[in-house]
């Protein structure tokens, strides 16, 4: 009986806190992305032109984001029936955007960042351990 109550409390707490944290994160992402719009990030291997390049340098940004209990529960349910696990899609989206932003913020004076690579890895794969994903974004900042 107490086990079920404990489980339900975890789901409710996870849902409330998780939703608040996610909303706040998306809001801050939108705001910061707007501020960094002046710095283009390109997946091409070469800069658009070599004119006036002073310096090039490797830059990176990374983030580790944890799942919450509600997401874990819903994902478990969907795993049973099949379909898109949308709760994880938003989580990964947040992590990728955050990592890219951190990379951009570490090279504020650059004129562009080229050859962007984004790498995702899960911190723990077993269901008992902690569930979190790490995203690393890296590229070459070009200074003109």
């Amino acid at each position, binding site marked *: 009986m107490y086990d079920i109550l404990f489980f339900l409390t*975890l789901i409710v*707490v*996870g849902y409330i*806190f*998780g939703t608040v*944290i*996610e909303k706040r*994160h998306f809001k801050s992402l939108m705001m910061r992305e707007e501020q960094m719009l002046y710095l283009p990030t390109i997946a091409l*291997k*070469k*800069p658009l032109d*070599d004119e006036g*390049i002073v310096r*090039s*340098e*490797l830059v*990176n940004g*990374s*983030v*580790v*984001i*944890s*799942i*919450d*209990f509600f*997401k*874990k529960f819903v994902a478990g349910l969907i795993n049973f029936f099949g379909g898109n696990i949308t709760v994880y899609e938003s989580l990964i989206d947040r992590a990728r955007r*955050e990592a890219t932003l951190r990379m951009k913020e570490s090279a504020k004076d650059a004129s562009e960042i*080229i*050859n962007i*690579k984004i*790498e995702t*890895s*899960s*911190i*723990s*794969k*077993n269901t008992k*351990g*902690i*569930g*979190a994903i*790490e995203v*690393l974004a*890296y*590229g*070459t900042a*070009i200074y003109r």
Partner: protein
Amino acid sequence: MLITNIEYVPKREIKEHFGVVSGSTVRAKHVGRDIMAGFKNVFGGELKGYTELLSESREEAMARMVSQAESLGANAILNVRFSTSSVAAGAAELYVYGTAVRI
């Protein structure tokens, strides 16, 4: 030491190739951080301790790669790639590699 992940250095000529250089670190998670992360797993959000831990390890892997390149007499590393793999439960390997050249 100039490090980039593109294949050349703009406006500079590559004079000599030294082949692949690499660096890696294997890090285990901290018990205290693990407990904190366990709590965070209920609420969600960023695991700052892990972000720091992984970026520190990545810096160390890069430092190892740079010292290897320096011992070869290179002054730049091109086409750098990062890769992460979990070796065992609770440990991660961070690997970084690139081509050492002299420009």
